């Protein structure tokens, strides 16, 4: 379902500031594709083994077909989805502890340090330049 989008990324390798480096293993998008296919095949195989191998179940749920694979997959998806919500709640500017006046809360007496002040302030944004590995964050 999301394949076309990911595929699009895989077909558009993006290299920046790296002219002096020779082409490496994952600069070739087809290698990344093979890696993803290999992982998918491994998952299918492991899922299938559940039906073949006799599992010694201590807990009744362990005997349920596909319990561990589904739990692992769902746990990670849930983890990321909840982490995204958590980010909305807890994320602040990188210099949050250094310059409380910026947040308009007044009367700040935060005793903190100011290392790297102003450094890379403009990089406070998604690093979504695109590569073989990641999709564009729209």
């Amino acid at each position: 379902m999301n394949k076309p989008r990911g595929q699009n990324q895989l077909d558009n390798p993006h290299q920046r500031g790296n002219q002096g480096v020779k082409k490496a293993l994952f600069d070739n998008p087809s290698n990344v594709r093979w890696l993803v296919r290999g992982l998918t095949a491994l998952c299918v195989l492991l899922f299938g083994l559940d039906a073949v191998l006799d599992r010694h179940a201590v807990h009744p749920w362990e005997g349920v077909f596909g319990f561990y694979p589904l739990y692992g997959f769902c746990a990670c998806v849930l983890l990321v989805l909840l982490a995204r919500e958590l980010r909305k709640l807890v994320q602040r500017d990188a210099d949050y502890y250094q310059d409380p006046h910026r947040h308009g809360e007044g009367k700040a007496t935060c005793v903190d340090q100011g290392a790297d002040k102003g450094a890379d302030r403009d990089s406070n944004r998604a690093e979504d330049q695109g590569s073989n590995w990641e999709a564009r964050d729209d």
Partner: protein
Amino acid sequence: MIELSPVWPLFIGALLAGLTRGRVRALVMLAAPILGALWLYQLEPGISAETELLGYQLLPVRIDPLSLVFGYLFHLAALIGVIYALHLRDKMQDVAALAYAGSAVGAVFAGDLLTLFIYWELLALTSALLVFARRSERSLGAGLRYLLLQVGSGILLLIGAILYGADGNDLAFNHIGLDASGGWLIFFAFGIKSAFPLLHGWLTDAYPEATPTGTVFLSAFTTKVAIYALARGFAGTELLVYIGAVMACFPIFYAVIENDLRRVLAYSLINQLGFMVVGIGIGTELALNGTVAHACAHVLYKGLLLMSMGAVLQVTGEMRGSELGGLYKKMPKTLLLCLVGAASISAFPLFSGFVSKSMVISAALQQGHDAVWLALLFASAGVFHHAGIKIPFFAFFGRDSKYVASAHEPPSNMLLAMTIAAVLCVGIGCFPRDFYALLPYAVDYSPYTVSHVLAQLQLLAFSALAFTWLKLSGIYPPELHSVNLDADWLYRRILPRSVANVRALAAPWEQRLGRVTAAWTVRGLKLLTRHHGRQGVMARSWPTGSMVLCVVLLLGLSLLLYYF
């Protein structure tokens, strides 16, 4: 006899490191943990030192199977850390590192609570130096906050120990329990150092601010001493099962959204401590063996991961995932070693985490803690997600960063230290029987059953599949140059703000009080001047005759009183 204490080689090494320089200091640094381990080997198990203070019997050195495992582990961790830091020419770090390792060794061999308190505070002081050694304003602030909480933990321990002793107990450090007098205070003291939820802020605040080499030492000692102390004093406390489950789960959410890769590892450190705390809470021999085994394995693979990230920091000067990437092209050896650490922390079969973590999970299942078992499975999948995949991915793969062109492998001593840790990670994973033989209890446990291997592989493979899908579909949260609010927010933001607000609210009263105080002070001064000043009645010189008159009057008065 005190001269038999296993701490001496490390403390003497720290002293000599402070007096020497260059290659001699490097030799001293290498010799101290090796000689320390040999010294420990020839010591007889049992109580080898006794003394008395204020009627309490103190046992500065007690050697038993539990403390012995941690003792050897700390010497090994110190040796690996020393090799990793051999290229440094920083006396402060060298001295602090050996003294820190010595304090940790002293703490695990402490047979009474007062000795434990002394080493507990020494741990705080020496480890804070490793944070300060980065010599930046950030590290200074983080180090001071760290020191405050660590010393606070020691004070709780001391008060708890005094209450415990005052209740008629001897001060020997054995099982304490929450019901004992002062038990809760000691529990919280251990809890701060174990990074219990909401008490963990110091760890994620300070560890990533230490030097690249300092963080490797930090990850090995403080929290493991606390785990040892909990295992010794509070084994079987059911509350710990639930605290541990929360510790295993909540940091992984932070780890997913954290940008600083060493801070991601700090969160995963808490996550791994959670497994150990669950094991202590369950308290069976299998669970306690699992805790000790996991502590040993964890020191090695977390050290390995932090060393690989330290190497990246050393080479690029950068640790933010948003700025890194593509380094596999220039740092393949570091990548390979990092992947061994990642496989170990993720508990892949044939790697160390698999043979240790499974003991705790099996113990939870056997004791009927179903919800905790599910939480630990969730945490296992999550740790692979953030420490097993995220760390190598954002540092070594992902998009090419600007550092790729200039990156190179770290110094050979760093690679050697990482290789030793990696070989041990694989060795423990491949030969679990030999590893289990070192554990304090004789328990028959086999991790390599078909069911177990298959379950773990399924869990991990589908976690990887989830990461791949989320990444390719753009759902995975991008790395952002930002800061995430955590427990340290309370004392870095809320507390100073609250103090400021209270002061602002009280400002009119403060001014009025100031005015009234000033007025009364002036009035008082005037009164004093009038009576005691140069012209004051009390400062005047009186003739002798008036004194005689006063005495006569007093005598006459007393005569009258006597007469009536």
